[in-house]
């Protein structure tokens, strides 16, 4: 019916519209009775209808339109922000029906940052908040303020909250609790209003009405947890009184939250809290309260053994509750709050924790994993990682990958700070790659390459692991593993000198199933082949030269080393025994290889002319097929390899006899040239390397490049053309081969298969069919859940407590860069910090005024009458900064009230500090004693270097300065 009437009125709503308006019920019914798939149509029709009706001058029509819109926006997620103005239009209505709808629509459509009509509502809100308007109206206004107030709105309306908050208005407003909650919003949005609102809020704490107390306590809990809690420290007696008086669990939970923040700041408060907390822990039957007590003890009173003991017992009860997964989950959460000093607590319940790894709830499993990984130290990383990686084989795919993730991040943390035995870790990476569920290829790839670059001593093992991965044809079909294989191929190409059997490596790299790999990975494979060829020839030549030299009559070592000065020592070692002189050789490529390598390479087959020829033929056969590959990367690299082989073949003498080979040194030159290309060691690159490059003079980076767009447009078709051109021009005499290669390919393939029968399944017919190659490492039998958890319990045999282990092997050098770079904080946190500072600073001011004590420098000193202590206000929470460049100890020595949260934000604070330096200087003479200790501490910090960046330093102790 609405459709018929709307055709005549396209845009302006008419009386007809309002008469025949669909009600909300109609709309809901039509949406619910819709046919499948018509929902978008119905929704857009309804929206069009609303858009028309909402402009009606009739408040009823407008209200119903708004109501329909709020329905659609909250149930169907339609955007309602466009209607903010219409909601505003309806706010002044005197009917509660309309007003409620208008406020509801406003709270859903107002976004404090984006809605520009919010200021228009100020007047109406003020009117509704005034004591003369009915409490229902004020309540609505308070709700809107609590949900979508902007800082400006908070500032303008703060005075209007006062009558509602005040205890003196008689009778006390029934809206006082709501007003208290809104006052909290106003305070956090706009610190300017603190002087106005803070005192009434404090007064609420002593109200006889528990609702008011509850609201006020809730507000303070929010304030204390969102910013710096130290300003609220001297309200502690007040909170303590409420704690003693109140019997409401709702209030107690909020109070405990406040105390959890305050207790670390003030040891005496913590001491006084122990008794009431233990009392609550023992007596309360409400699990929520018990849990909050546990959290308070763990975060606020970790040094009070009696309380911690009791709390840990409660947590064990939680963990043991078989029928309540919530308690098990929360128990694990609570345990993870305890730091390393309390690892005995985890130790005690380790059986429950490890059993949780097999819990039916994935969230509990994840939490248990997180807890276990938090307990990893360099002494037990070995056992825990191995057990977890083995357990991952049996668990479901998602959790298996969570485990792998956890192990990878923990072990890779801070440039592998936990890892001592890299050989072990590298082989662990290999095992992870073989997990059938593994989808973490990228991270494993990154770590394999990264370790190769950073840890020289791990390379032989790395090459061994890479070889095992490469040689297994079953891994090639798994798309998640191709990244790992790419890393393995790169590693074995780059560090081929550690490979025992380069020929076997070549066969692995060229096995037919590599066709399953994505082109970029194939390109890496082919490049690795290239490196292997160069290495083999280089070794071969060295071999010849040395045997020649020794046949010349074992000339002096000096002479020998001068001839082969630029040759690879490692290569030389694999040929002849007894050439000890060479060890003093300082070759370019491998001069500083550890001596242990030599022994491992002795059993390597020396290259012979035959083996090299065989290798070349093998490579040529396999790579020839790729010279016409569609993928540019593969094609280009394949042609590079073919070009090299071609070049080597063109030198006639190398085939004839070995003597002539030395005389005609062309091949030696070629190989040397290529070898020197690859011999330069690749190192890790600093994250900030790019930033350190100075901008060349005259280069304008900010210049607008838009006017160059036409060049791009013209070049659009060029790339593919140019690439094929350049390739062809570089290959000499290849075109003939290209033409026939496709014809040959089938026969070559057959030949290849004959030779590498081992890589094929007997029944295999087609390359494409091989995609469903069975995984070689499928778990044999899916172990039952019970078995799994039994296995897990075995983990408990290993202690999770850190213990000192003597490492048989010194930790190898790990190249690190970016020391100190990691401490950069985002500007976002800095901004937040400054806001927090404003708020807590403002609150300090208010408290100062309240105490009525004079102070020399406003907001710097706070005389706490109860405890006679001076705390530094504006600098509180500042930690010892770890930034290396700032060596000015003068302004470092503060101490701070040691909130742990501020640790990672210390950078944000630096900028607030400068105006205070003068004041600090005045104080210096008071602090001589503390300074020396800080000196010491800073030294320690520097020695431990960036290991500290992630580890939270111990909370500094509060210092008493009696004035």
């Amino acid at each position: 019916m609405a459709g018929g009437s709307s055709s005549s009125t396209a845009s302006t709503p008419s009386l007809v519209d309002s008469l025949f308006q669909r009600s909300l019920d109609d709309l809901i019914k039509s949406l619910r009775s819709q046919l499948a798939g018509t929902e978008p149509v119905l929704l857009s029709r309804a929206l069009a209808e609303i858009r028309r009706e909402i402009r009606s001058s009739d408040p009823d029509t407008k209200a119903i339109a708004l109501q329909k819109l709020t329905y659609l926006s909250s149930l169907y997620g339609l955007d309602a922000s466009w209607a903010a103005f219409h909601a505003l239009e309806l706010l002044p209505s005197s009917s509660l029906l309309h007003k409620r709808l208008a406020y509801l629509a406003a709270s859903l459509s107002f976004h404090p940052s984006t809605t520009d009509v919010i200021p228009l509502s100020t007047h109406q809100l003020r009117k509704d908040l005034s004591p003369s308007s009915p409490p229902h109206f004020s309540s609505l206004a308070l709700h809107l303020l609590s949900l979508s107030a902007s800082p400006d709105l908070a500032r303008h309306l703060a005075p209007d909250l006062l009558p509602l908050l005040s205890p003196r208005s008689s009778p006390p407003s029934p809206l006082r609790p709501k007003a208290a909650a809104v006052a909290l919003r106003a305070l956090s949005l706009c610190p300017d209003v603190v002087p106005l609102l803070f005192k009434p809020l404090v007064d609420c704490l002593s109200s006889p009405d528990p609702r008011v107390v509850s609201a006020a306590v809730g507000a303070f809990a929010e304030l204390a947890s969102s910013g710096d809690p130290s300003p609220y420290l001297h309200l502690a007696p007040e909170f303590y009184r409420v704690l003693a008086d109140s019997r409401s669990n709702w209030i107690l939970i909020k109070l405990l939250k406040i105390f959890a923040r305050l207790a670390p700041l003030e040891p005496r408060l913590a001491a006084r809290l122990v008794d009431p907390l233990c009392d609550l822990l023992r007596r309360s039957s409400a699990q929520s309260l018990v849990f909050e007590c546990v959290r308070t003890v763990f975060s606020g009173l970790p040094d009070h053994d009696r309380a911690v003991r009791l709390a840990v017992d409660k947590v064990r009860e939680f963990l043991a509750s078989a029928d309540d997964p919530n308690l098990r989950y929360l128990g694990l959460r609570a345990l993870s709050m305890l730091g390393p000093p309390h690892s005995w607590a985890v130790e005690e319940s380790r059986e429950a924790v490890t059993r949780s790894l097999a819990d039916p709830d994935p969230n509990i499993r994840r939490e248990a994993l997180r807890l276990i990984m938090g307990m990893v130290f360099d002494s037990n990383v070995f056992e825990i990682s191995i057990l977890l990686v083995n357990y991952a084989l049996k668990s479901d795919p998602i959790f298996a990958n969570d485990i792998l993730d956890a192990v990878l991040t923990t072990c890779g943390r801070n440039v592998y700070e936990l890892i001592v035995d890299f050989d072990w870790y590298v082989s662990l990476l290999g095992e992870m790659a073989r997990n059938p569920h593994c989808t973490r290829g990228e991270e494993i790839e990154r770590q394999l390459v990264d370790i190769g670059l950073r840890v020289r001593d791990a390379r032989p093992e790395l090459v061994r692991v890479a070889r095992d991965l490469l040689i297994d044809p079953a891994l090639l079909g798994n798309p998640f593993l191709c990244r790992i294989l790419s890393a393995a191929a790169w590693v074995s190409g780059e560090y081929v000198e550690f490979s025992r059997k380069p020929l076997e490596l070549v066969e692995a790299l060229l096995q037919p199933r590599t066709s399953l790999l994505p082109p970029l990975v194939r390109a890496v494979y082919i490049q690795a082949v290239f490196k292997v060829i160069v290495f083999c020839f280089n070794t071969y030549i060295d071999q010849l030269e040395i045997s020649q030299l020794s046949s010349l009559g074992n000339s002096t070592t000096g002479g020998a080393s001068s001839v082969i000065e630029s040759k690879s020592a490692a290569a030389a070692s694999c040929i002849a025994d007894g050439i000890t002189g060479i060890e003093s050789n300082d070759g370019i490529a491998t001069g500083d290889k550890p001596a242990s390598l030599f022994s491992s390479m002795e059993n390597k087959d020396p290259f012979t002319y035959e083996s090299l020829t065989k290798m070349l033929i093998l490579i040529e056969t396999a790579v020839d097929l790729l010279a016409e590959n569609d993928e540019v990367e593969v094609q280009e690299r394949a042609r590079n390899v073919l070009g090299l082989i071609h070049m080597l073949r063109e030198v006639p003498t190398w085939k004839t006899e070995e003597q002539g080979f030395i005389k005609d040194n062309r091949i030696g030159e070629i190989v040397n040239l290529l070898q020197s290309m690859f011999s330069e060691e690749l190192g890790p690159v600093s994250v900030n390397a790019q930033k350190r490059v100075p901008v060349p003079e005259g280069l304008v980076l900010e210049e607008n490049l838009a006017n160059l767009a036409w060049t791009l447009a013209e070049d659009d078709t060029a790339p593919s053309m140019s690439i094929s051109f350049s390739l062809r021009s570089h290959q000499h005499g290849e075109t003939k081969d290209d033409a026939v290669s496709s014809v040959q390919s089938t026969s070559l393939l057959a030949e290849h298969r004959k030779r590498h029968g081992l890589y094929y399944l007997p029944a295999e017919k087609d390359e494409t069919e091989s995609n469903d190659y069975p995984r070689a490492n499928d778990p044999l039998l899916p172990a039952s859940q019970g078995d799994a958890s039994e296995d897990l319990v075995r983990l408990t045999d290993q202690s999770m407590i850190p213990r000192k282990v003597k490492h048989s092997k010194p930790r190898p050098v790990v190249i690190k860069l970016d020391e100190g770079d990691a401490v950069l904080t985002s500007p976002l946190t800095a901004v937040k910090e400054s806001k927090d500072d404003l708020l807590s600073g403002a609150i300090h001011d208010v408290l100062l005024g309240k105490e009525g004590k004079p102070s020399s420098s406003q907001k710097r000193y706070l005389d706490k009458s109860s405890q006679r202590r001076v705390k530094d206000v504006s600098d509180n929470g500042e930690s010892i900064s770890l930034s290396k460049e700032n060596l000015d100890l003068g302004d470092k020595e503060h101490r701070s009230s040691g909130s742990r949260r501020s640790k990672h934000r210390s950078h944000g604070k630096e900028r607030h500090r400068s105006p205070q330096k003068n004041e600090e200087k005045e104080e210096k003479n008071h602090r001589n004693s503390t300074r020396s200790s800080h000196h010491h501490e800073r030294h320690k910090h520097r020695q431990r270097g960036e290991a500290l960046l992630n580890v939270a330093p111990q909370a500094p102790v509060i210092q008493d300065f009696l004035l």
Partner: protein
Amino acid sequence: MVIRELSGLILTRGPKLCNFVEWKGYKVVYRRYASLYFCMGIDADDNELEILEIIHHFVEILDRYFGSVCELDLIFNFHKAYYILDEILIAGELQESSKKTVARLIAAQDSLVETAQEQANSISNMIAQATK
């Protein structure tokens, strides 16, 4: 968007699992009543068990108001559910722990609205008749 992702996450969870999920850095506490799910996103340091109790509190009040509440009650009276929620929570804090008080407040508002509505209806009827 939020609703779609969260419901996908929560609905797939079995009945005997815990009531907490983590989602994009938030903690979400949910509770299931027959076919109705109630979810609340909370801060990292909020007490999960307390939130469960708040949800239960809300549901009890809804139940009392609608008389064994069901999905349809909430769909057709979604704004009333909002009003009730407003009486229980403000700025994310529980402000009224007494079920009776909430019921009384809501009833008072409803009666006000009804009288207003009756008036409004009579006026619009008059207008409607006048324009015929």
